[in-house]
């Protein structure tokens, strides 16, 4: 029912813009990753050297592995915090449901940087936690491991991405027919068993979506590691940042970025197909 000209009018401008400012940039990242640097100049000579370094130099694989471990820890913690919370708010909170929902969202809207900084205030050597522990006599001198460690990065990123897990899990749970849960209870299942056997499987698509968000976004984070990670908390994006900055090796930086990009796309495609299969299975 929509005329040809209408269809062209709504599709061509966004297609052009997206091609110029999303597709072309990815393509240029791809191209540069096959170039090389000679005496502080990017030379347009084709080479696989950057990808060779990526695989051959243990530093890159080690940091990539650490980033994946940090991202996985954040994802697991965010799931442990966010999923039961989604269950509580959607099923057990009664008349406080909307208020509690909004209370989970509000921290999401507080500046990312500001929340990371707040953790620095809490965990620092002269910070709130250390001085509190000394004040009440548990510690005699500040615990140094709190700040500038992978622990601090995981804590901060968990704080940031728990609402990202909560939201899709909550959306999934809100759509579960109440009758199913009542039936499970009438048949003698304990609340925990109802959760585990009925609610959890039915909300799995939402939970997977949230977990993907948490994993991918924390994998690519470079702000929290820079601010509170210290030398042992460096993640893969920090290496990319330094390659594009002081180290001035754009080709290698592009190769690493491209690997992250491909990793993310593969991960999203996989989880999306799992989600779709679960949804279809649930509908049958």
């Amino acid at each position, binding site marked *: *029912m929509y005329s040809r000209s*209408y269809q062209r009018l709504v599709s061509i401008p966004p297609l052009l813009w997206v091609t110029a400012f999303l597709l072309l940039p990815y393509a240029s990242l791809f191209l540069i990753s096959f170039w090389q640097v000679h005496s502080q100049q990017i030379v347009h000579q084709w080479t696989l050297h950057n990808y060779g370094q990526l695989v051959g130099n243990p530093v890159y694989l080690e940091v990539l592995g650490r980033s994946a471990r940090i991202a996985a820890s954040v994802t697991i913690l965010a799931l442990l915090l966010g999923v039961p*919370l989604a269950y509580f708010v959607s099923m057990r909170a009664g008349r406080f449901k909307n208020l509690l929902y909004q209370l989970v969202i509000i921290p999401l809207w507080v500046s990312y940087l500001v929340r990371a900084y707040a953790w620095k205030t809490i965990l620092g050597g002269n910070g709130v936690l250390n001085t509190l522990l000394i004040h009440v006599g548990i510690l005699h001198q500040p615990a140094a491991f709190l700040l500038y460690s992978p622990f601090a990065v995981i804590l901060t990123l968990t704080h940031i991405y728990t609402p990202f897990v909560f939201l899709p899990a909550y959306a999934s749970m809100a759509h579960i027919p109440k009758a199913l849960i009542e039936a499970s209870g009438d048949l003698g299942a304990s609340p925990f068993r109802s959760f585990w056997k009925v609610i959890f499987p039915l909300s799995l698509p939402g939970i997977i979506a949230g977990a993907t968000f948490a994993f991918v976004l924390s994998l690519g984070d470079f*702000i929290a590691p820079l601010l509170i990670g210290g030398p042992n908390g460096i993640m893969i994006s920090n290496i990319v940042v330094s390659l594009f900055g002081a180290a001035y090796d754009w080709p290698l930086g592009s190769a690493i970025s491209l690997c992250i990009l491909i990793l993310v796309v593969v991960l999203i495609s996989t989880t999306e197909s799992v989600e779709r299969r679960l949804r279809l299975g649930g509908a049958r």
Partner: protein
Amino acid sequence: MRPRVTWVHAHAALVFAFLYLPILVLIVYSFNGESVAGFPPHGWTLRWYNELFADDPLWSSVGNSLLVAAFAVALALLFGIPAALALDRADFPGKQVFRRLVLLPLILPGIITGLSLLTLFASAGAQLSLLTVAIGHGTALISVAVAEVSAGLQKFDRALEEASRDLGASEWYTFRRVTLPSLKLPIIAAALLIFTLSLDEIAVSFFLVGRENTLPLEIWSRLRRGITPEINAVSTLIFAFSVVTIVVWFKLRGSATDA
């Protein structure tokens, strides 16, 4: 049945404490009399707020951020609304690839979006400035506009458009007087979301910024030099602003779902 306090209640209380502890610390220490954040807080003062209001570079970065956010909203809506319409009702080759591509920045770490645009601008010889930051934000946030408007279009009843056409209205008139007004709420919600996301954006800005800073980058450059309570004060103000925005957003969404 009387509600019992169970492990789910205890768990929820702990999670809320975890989510709000840093925010509470931020607010309390923005009034702390000492510049080091020890416990307990040492006297109350408005000193950091006074310093904040006299801090010209910080306020000019606030102005820059507002400018960038306004531009990002305009850009993202200008291309996001037609993109959502195209995905809903146009046929063209590569539609699925286009859908994937336009929504990708929603989940892609900002560093990839920022870097890839940086390489494009560099090879085009473009000077980095607030404009390049705004183009980066706007382009990445087209995804938000598409997601919100698409959700609105799914609830939209096409019979309304058919009725308008049957009554003799042109396609353009129908679009202006029927389609667009019924998408008003998703569009406003998208604009609000894009505006706040742009105000807080740091990863894309980090790579595309020129000489003038946005507010998060200005805060960032000061944080790297160490802890300053002035940042607590500005964060508290931003928090208050965010809470107001989110309340407005929920009101809008509430009226959208009631309608």
